Protein backbone atom coordinates (compact mmCIF):
# COMPACT_ATOMS: atom_id res chain seq x y z
CA UNK A 1 0.00 0.00 0.00
CA UNK A 2 0.97 3.57 -0.61
CA UNK A 3 3.04 4.92 2.28
CA UNK A 4 1.19 8.21 2.59
CA UNK A 5 -2.14 6.42 2.66
CA UNK A 6 -0.84 4.09 5.36
CA UNK A 7 0.22 7.03 7.53
CA UNK A 8 -3.14 8.66 6.85
CA UNK A 9 -5.07 5.64 8.07
CA UNK A 10 -3.04 5.40 11.28
CA UNK A 11 -3.37 9.16 11.81
CA UNK A 12 -7.14 9.10 11.32
CA UNK A 13 -7.64 6.14 13.62
CA UNK A 14 -5.49 7.80 16.31
CA UNK A 15 -7.56 10.99 16.08
CA UNK A 16 -10.79 9.04 16.37
CA UNK A 17 -9.43 7.12 19.33
CA UNK A 18 -8.28 10.31 21.04
CA UNK A 19 -11.69 11.92 20.57
CA UNK A 20 -13.29 9.30 22.81
CA UNK A 21 -10.40 8.75 25.20
CA UNK A 22 -11.58 10.14 28.50
CA UNK A 23 -8.07 10.71 29.83
CA UNK A 24 -7.11 12.83 26.82
CA UNK A 25 -10.35 14.81 26.96
CA UNK A 26 -9.79 15.59 30.65
CA UNK A 27 -6.21 16.71 30.01
CA UNK A 28 -7.39 19.00 27.23
CA UNK A 29 -10.18 20.38 29.43
CA UNK A 30 -7.75 21.21 32.25
CA UNK A 31 -5.37 22.89 29.82
CA UNK A 32 -8.17 24.95 28.26
CA UNK A 33 -9.44 26.07 31.68
CA UNK A 34 -5.94 27.01 32.84
CA UNK A 35 -5.29 29.04 29.72
CA UNK A 36 -8.75 30.61 29.94
CA UNK A 37 -7.80 31.93 33.38
CA UNK A 38 -4.44 32.95 31.98
CA UNK A 39 -6.17 34.87 29.20
CA UNK A 40 -8.20 36.91 31.65
CA UNK A 41 -5.26 37.53 33.96
CA UNK A 42 -3.07 38.66 31.06
CA UNK A 43 -5.53 41.37 30.11
CA UNK A 44 -6.07 42.48 33.72
CA UNK A 45 -2.36 42.57 34.48
CA UNK A 46 -1.36 44.51 31.40
CA UNK A 47 -4.09 47.07 32.15
CA UNK A 48 -3.14 47.46 35.83
CA UNK A 49 0.59 47.77 35.50
CA UNK A 50 0.49 49.45 32.10
CA UNK A 51 3.33 49.11 29.71
CA UNK A 52 6.04 50.60 31.90
CA UNK A 53 6.85 47.36 33.61
CA UNK A 54 7.85 45.74 30.36
CA UNK A 55 9.72 48.66 28.78
CA UNK A 56 12.53 47.87 31.14
CA UNK A 57 13.49 44.80 29.21
CA UNK A 58 11.94 45.34 25.84
CA UNK A 59 13.97 47.56 23.55
CA UNK A 60 11.44 47.84 20.86
CA UNK A 61 10.37 50.67 18.65
CA UNK A 62 7.20 48.97 17.56
CA UNK A 63 4.37 49.05 20.09
CA UNK A 64 4.03 45.72 21.86
CA UNK A 65 0.60 44.28 22.69
CA UNK A 66 1.49 43.27 26.24
CA UNK A 67 -1.70 41.38 26.99
CA UNK A 68 -0.89 39.11 24.08
CA UNK A 69 2.72 38.69 25.16
CA UNK A 70 1.62 37.80 28.67
CA UNK A 71 -0.81 35.26 27.35
CA UNK A 72 1.96 33.79 25.24
CA UNK A 73 4.13 33.37 28.34
CA UNK A 74 1.28 31.74 30.24
CA UNK A 75 0.54 29.28 27.45
CA UNK A 76 4.14 28.38 26.84
CA UNK A 77 4.61 27.67 30.52
CA UNK A 78 1.79 25.12 30.48
CA UNK A 79 2.69 23.69 27.08
CA UNK A 80 5.54 21.26 27.91
CA UNK A 81 3.54 19.26 30.41
CA UNK A 82 0.46 19.34 28.20
CA UNK A 83 2.40 18.05 25.18
CA UNK A 84 4.05 15.37 27.27
CA UNK A 85 0.70 14.24 28.69
CA UNK A 86 -0.64 13.77 25.17
CA UNK A 87 2.37 11.90 23.84
CA UNK A 88 4.10 9.99 26.62
CA UNK A 89 2.22 6.72 26.10
CA UNK A 90 1.86 6.76 22.34
CA UNK A 91 4.12 3.74 21.86
CA UNK A 92 4.56 2.32 25.37
CA UNK A 93 0.77 2.42 25.83
CA UNK A 94 0.24 0.43 22.65
CA UNK A 95 2.88 -2.07 23.69
CA UNK A 96 1.56 -2.56 27.21
CA UNK A 97 -2.06 -3.05 26.09
CA UNK A 98 -0.87 -4.96 23.00
CA UNK A 99 -3.00 -3.03 20.52
CA UNK A 100 0.15 -2.19 18.59
CA UNK A 101 0.64 -5.82 17.58
CA UNK A 102 -2.26 -6.09 15.19
CA UNK A 103 -1.13 -2.80 13.66
CA UNK A 104 2.48 -3.86 13.29
CA UNK A 105 1.67 -7.06 11.42
CA UNK A 106 -0.09 -5.02 8.74
CA UNK A 107 1.62 -1.68 8.53
CA UNK A 108 5.23 -0.57 8.31
CA UNK A 109 6.57 0.56 11.65
CA UNK A 110 7.65 3.85 10.15
CA UNK A 111 4.03 4.55 9.21
CA UNK A 112 2.82 3.69 12.71
CA UNK A 113 5.21 6.04 14.42
CA UNK A 114 4.69 8.84 11.90
CA UNK A 115 0.90 8.50 12.05
CA UNK A 116 0.84 8.56 15.83
CA UNK A 117 3.20 11.53 16.00
CA UNK A 118 1.22 13.54 13.45
CA UNK A 119 -2.03 12.79 15.29
CA UNK A 120 -0.61 14.28 18.48
CA UNK A 121 0.85 17.30 16.75
CA UNK A 122 -2.46 17.94 15.01
CA UNK A 123 -4.53 17.55 18.18
CA UNK A 124 -2.22 19.76 20.16
CA UNK A 125 -1.92 22.42 17.46
CA UNK A 126 -5.66 22.67 16.98
CA UNK A 127 -6.33 22.99 20.70
CA UNK A 128 -3.81 25.82 20.84
CA UNK A 129 -5.09 27.47 17.67
CA UNK A 130 -8.60 27.52 19.12
CA UNK A 131 -7.27 29.05 22.34
CA UNK A 132 -5.23 31.67 20.50
CA UNK A 133 -8.18 32.67 18.31
CA UNK A 134 -10.31 32.93 21.45
CA UNK A 135 -7.62 35.07 23.01
CA UNK A 136 -7.54 37.35 19.96
CA UNK A 137 -11.33 37.79 20.14
CA UNK A 138 -11.33 38.35 23.87
CA UNK A 139 -8.55 40.92 23.66
CA UNK A 140 -10.31 42.69 20.82
CA UNK A 141 -13.39 42.88 22.97
CA UNK A 142 -11.40 44.29 25.91
CA UNK A 143 -9.00 46.61 24.10
CA UNK A 144 -10.58 47.27 20.69
CA UNK A 145 -7.28 46.28 19.04
CA UNK A 146 -7.53 43.39 16.64
CA UNK A 147 -4.18 41.57 16.86
CA UNK A 148 -4.98 38.64 14.64
CA UNK A 149 -1.75 38.50 12.67
CA UNK A 150 0.46 38.77 15.76
CA UNK A 151 -1.65 36.16 17.51
CA UNK A 152 -1.19 33.74 14.64
CA UNK A 153 2.55 34.40 14.50
CA UNK A 154 2.86 33.60 18.20
CA UNK A 155 0.77 30.49 17.71
CA UNK A 156 3.13 29.28 14.99
CA UNK A 157 6.11 29.91 17.27
CA UNK A 158 4.32 28.05 20.06
CA UNK A 159 3.67 25.18 17.69
CA UNK A 160 7.40 24.78 17.14
CA UNK A 161 7.85 24.36 20.92
CA UNK A 162 4.95 21.94 20.95
CA UNK A 163 6.65 19.83 18.26
CA UNK A 164 9.79 19.81 20.40
CA UNK A 165 7.98 18.51 23.49
CA UNK A 166 5.78 16.13 21.53
CA UNK A 167 8.77 14.48 19.91
CA UNK A 168 10.45 14.36 23.32
CA UNK A 169 7.32 12.61 24.63
CA UNK A 170 7.44 10.21 21.69
CA UNK A 171 11.04 9.38 22.51
CA UNK A 172 10.11 8.80 26.15
CA UNK A 173 7.31 6.48 25.04
CA UNK A 174 9.93 4.50 23.14
CA UNK A 175 12.68 4.07 25.68
CA UNK A 176 10.49 2.01 27.99
CA UNK A 177 7.49 -0.28 27.58
CA UNK A 178 5.83 0.99 30.75
CA UNK A 179 3.75 4.14 30.20
CA UNK A 180 4.10 5.43 33.78
CA UNK A 181 7.88 5.27 33.44
CA UNK A 182 7.71 7.24 30.19
CA UNK A 183 5.80 9.91 32.07
CA UNK A 184 8.16 10.10 35.06
CA UNK A 185 11.24 10.29 32.90
CA UNK A 186 9.56 12.90 30.71
CA UNK A 187 8.68 15.12 33.67
CA UNK A 188 12.20 14.72 35.08
CA UNK A 189 13.63 15.76 31.72
CA UNK A 190 11.42 18.84 31.51
CA UNK A 191 12.63 19.93 34.94
CA UNK A 192 16.20 19.10 33.91
CA UNK A 193 15.87 21.26 30.81
CA UNK A 194 14.84 24.21 32.97
CA UNK A 195 18.09 23.86 34.90
CA UNK A 196 20.11 23.43 31.73
CA UNK A 197 18.77 26.73 30.42
CA UNK A 198 20.28 28.58 33.37
CA UNK A 199 23.87 27.57 32.58
CA UNK A 200 25.18 29.76 29.83
CA UNK A 201 27.47 27.22 28.15
CA UNK A 202 24.76 24.61 27.67
CA UNK A 203 21.68 26.80 27.57
CA UNK A 204 21.40 26.45 23.79
CA UNK A 205 20.38 22.83 24.34
CA UNK A 206 17.31 23.76 26.31
CA UNK A 207 14.05 24.92 24.75
CA UNK A 208 13.59 27.24 27.72
CA UNK A 209 16.47 29.23 26.33
CA UNK A 210 14.27 30.28 23.42
CA UNK A 211 11.03 31.01 25.25
CA UNK A 212 11.73 34.68 25.64
CA UNK A 213 12.27 35.11 21.92
CA UNK A 214 8.52 35.09 21.44
CA UNK A 215 8.61 38.79 22.07
CA UNK A 216 10.99 39.28 19.15
CA UNK A 217 8.13 38.17 16.93
CA UNK A 218 6.06 41.06 18.21
CA UNK A 219 9.06 43.38 17.93
CA UNK A 220 9.79 42.28 14.40
CA UNK A 221 13.28 40.84 14.98
CA UNK A 222 13.17 37.88 12.63
CA UNK A 223 16.82 36.76 12.94
CA UNK A 224 16.42 35.85 16.61
CA UNK A 225 13.19 34.06 15.90
CA UNK A 226 14.61 32.04 13.00
CA UNK A 227 17.55 30.89 15.11
CA UNK A 228 15.21 29.60 17.79
CA UNK A 229 12.95 27.84 15.33
CA UNK A 230 15.83 26.09 13.58
CA UNK A 231 17.27 24.92 16.87
CA UNK A 232 13.92 23.63 18.15
CA UNK A 233 13.10 21.81 14.94
CA UNK A 234 16.61 20.35 14.83
CA UNK A 235 16.16 18.82 18.26
CA UNK A 236 12.69 17.59 17.31
CA UNK A 237 14.10 15.82 14.26
CA UNK A 238 16.77 14.27 16.47
CA UNK A 239 14.18 12.97 18.96
CA UNK A 240 11.94 11.67 16.22
CA UNK A 241 14.84 9.97 14.48
CA UNK A 242 15.94 8.32 17.71
CA UNK A 243 12.37 7.16 18.39
CA UNK A 244 12.14 5.65 14.95
CA UNK A 245 15.50 3.93 15.34
CA UNK A 246 14.43 2.34 18.61
CA UNK A 247 10.93 1.46 17.48
CA UNK A 248 12.14 -0.34 14.37
CA UNK A 249 14.30 -2.65 16.42
CA UNK A 250 11.98 -3.24 19.28
CA UNK A 251 10.16 -6.49 20.01
CA UNK A 252 6.45 -5.83 20.29
Amino acid at each position, binding site marked *: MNRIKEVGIVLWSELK*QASRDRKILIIIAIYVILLGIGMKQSVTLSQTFSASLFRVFLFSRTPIPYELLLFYFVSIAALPLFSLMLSYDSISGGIS*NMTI*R*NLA*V*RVKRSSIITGKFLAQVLTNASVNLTLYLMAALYMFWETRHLMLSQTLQLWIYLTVFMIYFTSLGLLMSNITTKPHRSLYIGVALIIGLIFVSSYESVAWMSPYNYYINGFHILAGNTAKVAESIISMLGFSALFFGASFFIFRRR*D*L
Partner: protein
Amino acid sequence: MKYAIETKNLAKKFGFRIVVDSVNLKVPEGSVTALVGENGAGKTTTLSMISGLVRPTLGQMIILGKDISETDVIREDVGVALQKSSFDPHRKALDTLMFYASLKGIKKEDARVECTELLKKVDMEEHAETRIKEMSHGMLKMMEFANALIGDPRVLILDEPASGLDPEYYHKLKELIKGFGKNKTVLLASHNLDFVSEVCDHVAVMHKGKIMIQEKEKKLAHGKALEKVFVDLMKKF
Protein backbone atom coordinates in the same frame (compact mmCIF):
# COMPACT_ATOMS: atom_id res chain seq x y z
CA MET B 1 8.74 -29.59 -2.72
CA LYS B 2 8.02 -25.87 -2.62
CA TYR B 3 7.96 -24.15 0.73
CA ALA B 4 5.68 -21.25 1.60
CA ILE B 5 7.61 -20.44 4.75
CA GLU B 6 11.25 -21.19 5.32
CA THR B 7 13.53 -20.17 8.16
CA LYS B 8 17.27 -20.58 8.09
CA ASN B 9 19.16 -20.76 11.37
CA LEU B 10 16.58 -18.56 12.98
CA ALA B 11 17.54 -17.63 16.52
CA LYS B 12 16.36 -15.34 19.28
CA LYS B 13 18.02 -14.38 22.51
CA PHE B 14 16.25 -12.52 25.29
CA GLY B 15 19.09 -11.11 27.31
CA PHE B 16 21.45 -14.03 27.70
CA ARG B 17 18.75 -16.65 27.27
CA ILE B 18 18.53 -18.41 23.95
CA VAL B 19 14.84 -18.97 23.41
CA VAL B 20 14.89 -20.00 19.77
CA ASP B 21 17.98 -21.85 18.63
CA SER B 22 18.95 -22.29 14.96
CA VAL B 23 15.50 -23.15 13.77
CA ASN B 24 15.23 -24.43 10.22
CA LEU B 25 11.55 -24.67 9.69
CA LYS B 26 10.13 -25.64 6.32
CA VAL B 27 6.43 -25.24 5.74
CA PRO B 28 5.34 -26.89 2.48
CA GLU B 29 3.05 -24.85 0.26
CA GLY B 30 -0.58 -25.83 0.71
CA SER B 31 0.06 -27.65 3.97
CA VAL B 32 -1.36 -27.15 7.41
CA THR B 33 1.71 -27.43 9.60
CA ALA B 34 1.61 -27.57 13.38
CA LEU B 35 4.29 -26.39 15.72
CA VAL B 36 3.97 -28.34 18.93
CA GLY B 37 6.08 -28.30 22.04
CA GLU B 38 5.99 -27.76 25.78
CA ASN B 39 5.14 -24.43 27.42
CA GLY B 40 8.02 -22.08 26.84
CA ALA B 41 9.45 -24.13 23.97
CA GLY B 42 9.67 -21.02 21.81
CA LYS B 43 6.67 -21.48 19.52
CA THR B 44 5.20 -18.04 20.04
CA THR B 45 8.60 -16.43 19.72
CA THR B 46 9.18 -18.22 16.41
CA LEU B 47 5.77 -17.24 15.06
CA SER B 48 6.27 -13.67 16.27
CA MET B 49 9.53 -13.43 14.36
CA ILE B 50 7.86 -14.72 11.22
CA SER B 51 5.04 -12.20 11.74
CA GLY B 52 7.50 -9.33 12.12
CA LEU B 53 6.80 -8.48 15.75
CA VAL B 54 9.98 -9.87 17.22
CA ARG B 55 13.34 -9.17 15.69
CA PRO B 56 15.54 -12.22 15.14
CA THR B 57 18.94 -12.22 16.77
CA LEU B 58 20.23 -14.26 13.86
CA GLY B 59 18.99 -16.01 10.80
CA GLN B 60 16.82 -15.59 7.79
CA MET B 61 13.13 -15.94 7.04
CA ILE B 62 11.51 -16.35 3.68
CA ILE B 63 7.81 -16.23 2.94
CA LEU B 64 6.55 -17.01 -0.57
CA GLY B 65 10.03 -16.47 -1.90
CA LYS B 66 10.47 -13.06 -0.29
CA ASP B 67 13.11 -12.38 2.34
CA ILE B 68 11.37 -10.94 5.38
CA SER B 69 14.22 -11.13 7.87
CA GLU B 70 13.85 -7.44 8.79
CA THR B 71 10.92 -6.40 10.98
CA ASP B 72 10.04 -3.45 8.77
CA VAL B 73 9.39 -5.54 5.67
CA ILE B 74 5.68 -5.92 5.14
CA ARG B 75 4.50 -9.51 5.12
CA GLU B 76 2.32 -9.42 2.06
CA ASP B 77 -0.26 -12.08 1.55
CA VAL B 78 0.12 -13.22 5.17
CA GLY B 79 -2.60 -13.23 7.81
CA VAL B 80 -1.68 -13.41 11.46
CA ALA B 81 -3.70 -14.38 14.54
CA LEU B 82 -1.62 -13.92 17.65
CA GLN B 83 -1.70 -15.76 20.94
CA LYS B 84 -1.79 -12.49 22.82
CA SER B 85 -2.89 -9.26 21.25
CA SER B 86 -5.78 -6.95 21.57
CA PHE B 87 -8.19 -4.84 19.63
CA ASP B 88 -9.38 -1.39 20.60
CA PRO B 89 -11.92 -2.27 23.36
CA HIS B 90 -14.36 0.48 22.37
CA ARG B 91 -14.73 -0.57 18.74
CA LYS B 92 -17.49 -2.85 17.52
CA ALA B 93 -16.73 -6.17 15.85
CA LEU B 94 -17.51 -5.14 12.29
CA ASP B 95 -15.75 -1.77 12.66
CA THR B 96 -12.71 -3.52 14.07
CA LEU B 97 -12.39 -5.84 11.10
CA MET B 98 -13.09 -2.98 8.69
CA PHE B 99 -10.32 -0.96 10.27
CA TYR B 100 -7.81 -3.76 9.73
CA ALA B 101 -9.13 -4.23 6.21
CA SER B 102 -8.43 -0.55 5.55
CA LEU B 103 -4.83 -1.19 6.63
CA LYS B 104 -4.67 -3.74 3.84
CA GLY B 105 -5.75 -1.05 1.41
CA ILE B 106 -9.24 -2.45 0.95
CA LYS B 107 -11.87 0.16 0.07
CA LYS B 108 -14.57 0.87 2.62
CA GLU B 109 -17.52 -0.61 0.77
CA ASP B 110 -15.60 -3.73 -0.27
CA ALA B 111 -14.36 -4.03 3.31
CA ARG B 112 -17.90 -3.90 4.67
CA VAL B 113 -18.98 -6.72 2.37
CA GLU B 114 -15.90 -8.83 3.07
CA CYS B 115 -15.89 -8.34 6.84
CA THR B 116 -19.61 -9.04 7.17
CA GLU B 117 -18.96 -12.22 5.22
CA LEU B 118 -16.05 -13.10 7.52
CA LEU B 119 -18.13 -12.59 10.65
CA LYS B 120 -20.70 -14.91 9.19
CA LYS B 121 -17.99 -17.43 8.39
CA VAL B 122 -16.83 -17.59 12.03
CA ASP B 123 -20.40 -17.69 13.36
CA MET B 124 -20.33 -14.18 14.74
CA GLU B 125 -22.72 -12.36 12.47
CA GLU B 126 -25.11 -11.57 15.32
CA HIS B 127 -22.21 -9.87 17.12
CA ALA B 128 -21.34 -7.42 14.36
CA GLU B 129 -22.39 -4.54 16.60
CA THR B 130 -20.94 -5.95 19.82
CA ARG B 131 -18.05 -4.01 21.29
CA ILE B 132 -14.73 -5.75 21.79
CA LYS B 133 -14.79 -5.10 25.55
CA GLU B 134 -18.09 -6.97 25.82
CA MET B 135 -16.76 -10.12 24.14
CA SER B 136 -15.92 -13.46 25.73
CA HIS B 137 -12.54 -15.13 25.31
CA GLY B 138 -13.86 -17.45 22.62
CA MET B 139 -15.40 -14.60 20.67
CA LEU B 140 -12.13 -12.70 20.78
CA LYS B 141 -10.29 -15.77 19.52
CA MET B 142 -12.68 -16.01 16.60
CA MET B 143 -12.24 -12.28 15.96
CA GLU B 144 -8.48 -12.84 15.79
CA PHE B 145 -9.06 -15.65 13.34
CA ALA B 146 -11.42 -13.57 11.19
CA ASN B 147 -8.91 -10.73 11.28
CA ALA B 148 -6.22 -13.06 9.94
CA LEU B 149 -8.47 -14.00 7.04
CA ILE B 150 -8.98 -10.43 5.80
CA GLY B 151 -7.88 -10.03 2.21
CA ASP B 152 -7.83 -13.81 1.71
CA PRO B 153 -4.07 -14.21 2.30
CA ARG B 154 -2.21 -17.21 0.93
CA VAL B 155 -0.34 -17.79 4.20
CA LEU B 156 -1.85 -17.93 7.67
CA ILE B 157 0.05 -17.86 10.93
CA LEU B 158 -2.11 -18.88 13.87
CA ASP B 159 -0.83 -19.00 17.43
CA GLU B 160 -3.01 -21.24 19.63
CA PRO B 161 -6.13 -20.66 17.53
CA ALA B 162 -8.12 -23.36 19.33
CA SER B 163 -7.30 -22.63 22.96
CA GLY B 164 -10.28 -21.92 25.15
CA LEU B 165 -12.94 -22.30 22.47
CA ASP B 166 -16.29 -23.85 23.35
CA PRO B 167 -17.25 -27.02 21.40
CA GLU B 168 -19.26 -25.06 18.88
CA TYR B 169 -16.53 -22.58 17.96
CA TYR B 170 -13.95 -25.34 18.20
CA HIS B 171 -15.82 -27.40 15.66
CA LYS B 172 -16.30 -24.36 13.42
CA LEU B 173 -12.60 -23.55 13.50
CA LYS B 174 -11.60 -27.10 12.59
CA GLU B 175 -14.05 -27.15 9.68
CA LEU B 176 -12.76 -23.83 8.38
CA ILE B 177 -9.10 -24.84 8.50
CA LYS B 178 -9.81 -28.23 6.96
CA GLY B 179 -11.73 -26.53 4.18
CA PHE B 180 -8.90 -24.24 3.08
CA GLY B 181 -7.62 -26.43 0.28
CA LYS B 182 -4.28 -26.41 -1.41
CA ASN B 183 -3.91 -22.73 -2.22
CA LYS B 184 -3.54 -21.73 1.42
CA THR B 185 -0.66 -22.56 3.72
CA VAL B 186 -1.20 -22.58 7.47
CA LEU B 187 1.41 -22.59 10.19
CA LEU B 188 -0.09 -22.93 13.63
CA ALA B 189 1.06 -23.53 17.18
CA SER B 190 -1.07 -25.64 19.43
CA HIS B 191 -1.08 -27.72 22.60
CA ASN B 192 -4.19 -29.54 21.59
CA LEU B 193 -2.87 -32.67 19.92
CA ASP B 194 -6.30 -33.96 18.98
CA PHE B 195 -6.82 -30.74 17.13
CA VAL B 196 -3.39 -31.04 15.52
CA SER B 197 -3.89 -34.61 14.34
CA GLU B 198 -7.29 -33.72 12.96
CA VAL B 199 -6.47 -30.58 10.99
CA CYS B 200 -2.72 -30.69 10.32
CA ASP B 201 -0.88 -32.72 7.74
CA HIS B 202 2.62 -31.78 8.93
CA VAL B 203 4.01 -31.53 12.43
CA ALA B 204 7.16 -29.90 13.75
CA VAL B 205 8.11 -30.69 17.32
CA MET B 206 9.86 -27.93 19.19
CA HIS B 207 11.74 -28.49 22.40
CA LYS B 208 13.75 -25.90 24.33
CA GLY B 209 14.02 -23.64 21.32
CA LYS B 210 15.03 -26.30 18.82
CA ILE B 211 13.06 -28.16 16.18
CA MET B 212 13.54 -31.83 17.00
CA ILE B 213 11.46 -33.49 14.38
CA GLN B 214 9.60 -32.31 11.32
CA GLU B 215 7.44 -34.89 9.63
CA LYS B 216 4.21 -35.62 7.87
CA GLU B 217 1.59 -36.12 10.54
CA LYS B 218 0.74 -39.61 9.28
CA LYS B 219 4.33 -40.69 9.41
CA LEU B 220 4.93 -39.27 12.85
CA ALA B 221 1.78 -40.59 14.46
CA HIS B 222 1.78 -43.84 12.56
CA GLY B 223 -1.78 -44.60 13.51
CA LYS B 224 -1.11 -43.94 17.19
CA ALA B 225 -2.45 -41.05 19.17
CA LEU B 226 -0.21 -38.04 18.61
CA GLU B 227 -0.22 -37.41 22.32
CA LYS B 228 1.52 -40.70 23.07
CA VAL B 229 4.07 -40.09 20.33
CA PHE B 230 4.74 -36.68 21.76
CA VAL B 231 5.19 -37.88 25.32
CA ASP B 232 7.57 -40.61 24.13
CA LEU B 233 9.54 -38.07 22.15
CA MET B 234 9.86 -35.77 25.14
CA LYS B 235 11.20 -38.65 27.21
CA LYS B 236 13.85 -39.30 24.59
CA PHE B 237 15.17 -35.73 24.50
